[in-house]
């Protein structure tokens, strides 16, 4: 099986470049790149994704990395993975299990063995399968030699040594040469899927402009890997995945966190006010701050505060002073922001609070995905403190939901919580690029000139929103604060009746947002039996699972919520059409319980997973089928 001899002559690259080897066309493929956290698997995965995206495939990705930057080398705890699902059709999620596993060491193999498709292709670096490595990973015998991998197609390559040989002439030190083995591997994978190398080569030329030797090393390794796969005819055929049938337009690959950041940039532009972000680093939300801080050219003011409390408080100050103010965080940081969110509710200032959820409670599972901060978002404050809560559903639509969160905040003078998830923030998919022209204007409720009759808590009849009078406006000085205010004058008031009136106004104000959002939609107009309900980032997987059963003619429908509080007005009407309602979420039933509280007339079944992992299509289909078969 092993061809240790390598031919270094470079054939032409590209999809059409391979002559004799048989090509098989596939609908979609899931590849998982797995290795030690220092092995560069995230980069290999990202570069592969970029190429497939540019080739027009539908894609969805799921990076999965350990929370320690450098967990003990060679152990299962230290395995970093990047899963990419790409295809012509049917790509709604990063995929349940890989068709191809790249395992850079025994630990990477061990970590993924329980979850592989039948007949999965496994690409391993045999150089890292020494006795010690095998023990460290927790295998008793060498899995390449015993029966462990009997059911799979294994491609063994001495990747580390071949990479070093390929780079021998560059005079790199051992470590630097070693670092390039991820590109050798990527080259092999590119060959397997008949993907071109140009994109990746261009990436390295650009990235290492100032250190061309490094760039060259990566490129040589990449080409060497490609040629090696070709030479050994790694698998008797190579595969082609045709471009997806997508809407016409210009696309780019985007992660959820990047899309969130860009959505805010666009929203601020459309509102005609500067963007202000006050934030404190926390996984998996930090990348939003990283992204925005690059765009000072666009006027983005990014303030790295001393903690999450200062993050939100600076945003509240910026909102008071007339900026489009946001703060970004994850669960533990959200807990710290709680009191300040109450202040924003009380002072009715427009801010957006983003929670890129991770596994909790406490520090929990920093790098894993979960949807368990929903109750915290809806109700987690002292006092009667209603707030608008919305959520994104795919990496790319984080753009739209960041934009929408900002629109609601500014047009209703209210704080808004936007929930995304680790799974969305780090995941990527093609985004059909929006131009600023096609986005609606956002109209902040500013009052810029003197109005003698105005009081700070006067509101309009429709939305119950107060006006935004920004410091600097002559003859409109006023004071706001966290103490209860008189309904009319806006002065501090401890009057009992007034408090009840104000509590009710704040409640109505949030409820009335429902008059300004689209109706809830669902898929499966003829179905009657089972309605699958989802929210947040599990959209793609839920959609995929329902879709498959619908194709089989099953009596099933699907509705997915982005507006959580308030719910779209026609929610009850949709629910009333079905015998059974199944709420699927990555927590212990928080959305189900919320629905029980606000729409108690329905019975809700639950499907929950709390493993720090997304759903799989398979487990969902099993659950749906079981409910469809039960009476």
């Amino acid at each position, binding site marked *: 099986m092993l061809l240790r001899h390598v031919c270094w002559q470079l054939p032409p690259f590209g999809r059409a470049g391979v002559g004799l080897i048989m090509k098989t066309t596939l609908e979609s493929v899931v590849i998982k790149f797995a290795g030690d956290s220092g092995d560069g698997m995230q980069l290999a995965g990202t570069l592969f994704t970029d190429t497939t995206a*540019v080739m027009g495939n539908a894609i969805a990705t799921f990076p999965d990395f350990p929370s320690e930057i450098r967990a003990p080398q060679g152990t299962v705890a230290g395995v970093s993975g990047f899963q990419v699902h790409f295809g012509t059709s049917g790509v709604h999620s990063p995929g349940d299990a890989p068709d191809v596993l790249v395992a850079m060491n025994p630990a990477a193999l061990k970590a993924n063995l329980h979850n592989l498709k039948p007949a999965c292709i496994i690409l391993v670096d045999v150089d890292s399968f020494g006795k010690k490595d095998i023990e460290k990973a927790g295998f008793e015998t060498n899995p390449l030699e015993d029966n462990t991998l009997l059911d799979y197609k294994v491609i063994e390559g001495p990747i580390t040594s071949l990479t070093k040989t390929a780079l021998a002439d560059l005079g790199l030190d051992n470590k630097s040469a070693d670092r390039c083995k991820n590109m050798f591997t990527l080259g092999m994978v590119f060959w397997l899927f008949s993907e071109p190398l140009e994109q990746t080569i261009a990436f390295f030329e650009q990235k290492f402009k100032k250190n061309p030797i490094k760039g060259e090393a990566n490129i040589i390794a990449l080409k060497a890997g490609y040629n090696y796969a070709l030479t050994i005819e790694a698998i008797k055929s190579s595969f082609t995945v045709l471009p997806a049938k997508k*809407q016409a337009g*210009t696309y780019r690959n985007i992660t959820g966190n990047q899309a969130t950041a860009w959505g805010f940039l666009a929203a601020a532009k459309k509102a005609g006010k500067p963007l202000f972000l006050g934030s404190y680093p926390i996984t998996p939300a930090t990348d939003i701050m990283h992204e925005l801080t690059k765009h000072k050219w666009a006027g983005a*003011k990014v303030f790295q505060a001393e903690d999450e409390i200062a993050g939100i408080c600076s945003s509240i100050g910026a909102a008071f002073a007339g900026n489009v103010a946001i703060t970004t965080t994850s669960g533990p940081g959200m807990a710290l922001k709680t009191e300040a969110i109450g202040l924003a509710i009380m002072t009715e200032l427009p801010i957006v609070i983003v929670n890129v959820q991770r596994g909790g409670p406490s520090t929990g599972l920093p790098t894993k995905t979960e949807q368990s901060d929903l109750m915290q978002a809806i109700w987690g404050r002292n006092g009667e403190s209603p707030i608008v809560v919305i959520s994104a559903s795919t990496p790319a639509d984080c753009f739209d939901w960041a934009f929408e969160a900002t629109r609601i905040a500014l047009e209703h003078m209210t704080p808004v919580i936007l929930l995304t998830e680790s799974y969305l923030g780090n995941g990527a998919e093609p985004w059909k690029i929006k*131009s600023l022209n096609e986005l609606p204007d956002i109209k902040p409720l500013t009052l810029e000139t003197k109005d003698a009759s105005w009081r700070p808590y006067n509101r309009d009849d429709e939305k119950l929103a107060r006006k935004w009078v920004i410091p*600097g406006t002559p003859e409109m000085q006023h*004071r706001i604060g966290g103490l209860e205010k008189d309904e009319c004058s806006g002065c501090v008031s401890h009057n009992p009746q007034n408090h009840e009136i104000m509590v009710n106004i704040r409640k109505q104000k949030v409820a009335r947002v429902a008059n300004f959002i689209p109706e809830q939609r669902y898929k499966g107009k003829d179905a009657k039996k089972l309605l699958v309900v989802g929210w947040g980032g599990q959209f793609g997987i839920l959609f995929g699972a329902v879709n498959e059963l619908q194709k089989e003619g099953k009596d099933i429908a699907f509705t997915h919520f982005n507006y959580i509080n308030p719910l779209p007005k026609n929610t009850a009407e949709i629910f009333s059409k079905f015998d059974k309602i199944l709420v699927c979420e990555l927590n212990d039933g928080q959305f189900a319980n919320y629905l029980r509280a606000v729409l108690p007339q329905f019975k809700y079944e639950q499907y929950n997973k709390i493993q720090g992992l997304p759903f799989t299509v398979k487990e969902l289909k099993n659950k749906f089928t079981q409910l469809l078969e039960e009476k």
Partner: protein
Amino acid sequence: MEATTLQCLYKPKDYASDQEVKWCPGCGDYAIINAVQKAFSELNLKKEDVAIISGIGCSSRFPYYMDTYGFHTIHGRPAAVATGVKLANPELSVWMISGDGDSLAIGGNHFIHAIRRNINYNLILFNNEIYGLTKGQYSPTSERGKITKSSPFGTVESPFSVGELALGAQGQFYARVPDTDVKLMAQVMVEAEKHQGLSLVEVLQNCVIFNDKTHAAITAKENKANNQLILEHGKPMLFGENNSKGLRLNGLELEVVTVGENGITTADILVHDASTKSNVLHNMLIQMKLPEFPIAMGVIRNADAPVFDQGFTAQIQQQKASSKYNSLDDLFMSGNTFTINT
């Protein structure tokens, strides 16, 4: 611009709002608000250009009583809110009002970071060495052994020295003033507003209800001459009846001397330099304690250093001028894109 040569926009009282002031009769806060109004008038501040941001505590009710923009925020966090206000609109004159509990206990983190960053706003710290609003618990500035409602047997912890804390946090402007001297308070606040960067003014404030006369040894009329050294930049450090006493350096220590005794002349007396980069002498002045020394008052440190909001804004301007993107559309279309035609 010298305020005195101009027609003042507003008289001090014009800065008062229509709200009834609700501090206890005799509370030191009244004198402080008078001083602030006086300073605003002297500075010719337009009411609409002022934002007063406070935390929670008796002192933090302050913004309600001023006819400027005001924000009564949450306990301990006004420094962070004020930071957001200033970064959002650097044109505003931002004043933060806070208590010793608000800034040094719950808000200690924000306090030191605001100072460290040297953001350009004025922080008036009402130090009554007690929690007033919650009715009399000891605070981080209460002296060791202090008996309060939450320390019936006396505290067993040592207090912060506000000035030392501020200088330790890289503070570039620190002043200390007694609430009994409206004129000095107003002068210092004018200096604070003129200083670029964070200006911290610690007011020794009397809480008549829960900590009456805690500063009396320093602030009482009969003690003023001997127990206060009112510092002025460029002037010798003289105090006492008829300015008969002064400070000089003896080795690495400060020493109180009497002018005219043992051949000491005014020439031997230290001259105050608030603006020197080194804060060593400023720290020594802050550390002076009764009865051996008088308490240093006035602007103790007033030095130049890079200002956070200015750097923050300049970086944005610079990025705007040098960016390869002209619009968000440019950004969205940059890098790897691919087009699908049908």
